[in-house]
């Protein structure tokens, strides 16, 4: 499985939950805390993010940055497994 992760800018997140719905891995959830503008914000709740970018695409605040395993590292891994 491809490894990825997201970084949410929690000061501008408005907790709209669109990313949560968009995430095929169900990796995202909302914080219990509210942020400075009064919203519970998105956080990673599972470590199974694949960096598919879906959450970032639908985010109205452009609050999500996405990282993903580099192509070759994936290749290496797969070959390794052989």
């Amino acid at each position, binding site marked *: 499985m491809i490894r990825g992760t997201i970084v949410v800018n929690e000061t501008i997140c*408005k907790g709209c939950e669109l990313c949560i719905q968009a995430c095929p891995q169900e990796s995202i959830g909302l914080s219990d805390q*509210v942020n*400075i*503008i*009064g919203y519970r914000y998105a956080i990673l709740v599972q470590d199974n993010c694949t960096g598919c970018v879906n959450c970032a695409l639908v985010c109205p605040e452009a609050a999500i940055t996405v990282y993903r395993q580099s192509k070759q590292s994936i290749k290496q891994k797969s070959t390794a497994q052989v």
Partner: protein
Amino acid sequence: MKSEEIVVAGFGGQGVLSFGQILAYAAMMEGKEVSWMPSYGPEMRGGTANCIVIISPTRISSPIVTQFDTAVVFNQPSLDKFHPRIKKGGLLLYEQDGIINPPYREDIDILPVPAVREAIRLGKKQIGNMIMMGALLARRPLVSLDAVLVALKKSLPERHHHMIPLNEEGLRVGRQLAEKSRHEPSVLFPTES
């Protein structure tokens, strides 16, 4: 009784506008002059809402003032915005939940109220505002509880009237919270003025 200038502020959904309306309506019913002035317009888009309530024995000149006798705030941005605008010796009530940097002023009466927590304890998040109201009236007997309840009836749609008792409970809880708070207790029974 001199005129009282109050600001109520919080996030959009927190019901600050109706909080102010209930207060104003109650005061009107007790024969006071009142004005209620909401913040309006696009700054409401995903922002904070607030209203200014003025209760006075005499005709009110301007519904818009910039310094307040009392501030009732429900979130951090509102606290930051209105904290400095409270008159010396004035009163600041604020919802404790979600406040990261609490107020620091020495020259005003500050009362943090865990209204949300208490409301959840009582099982109805909605009554948080009445808890806040109860606390406010404990410190500032602007109107009688009865008047508030009548106002509440007016403002609640029929189908929610079954919640009146619960709100009454909220008012009482609020008053108690205000009383056992560190500050010297103020008048406990509503003014008859």
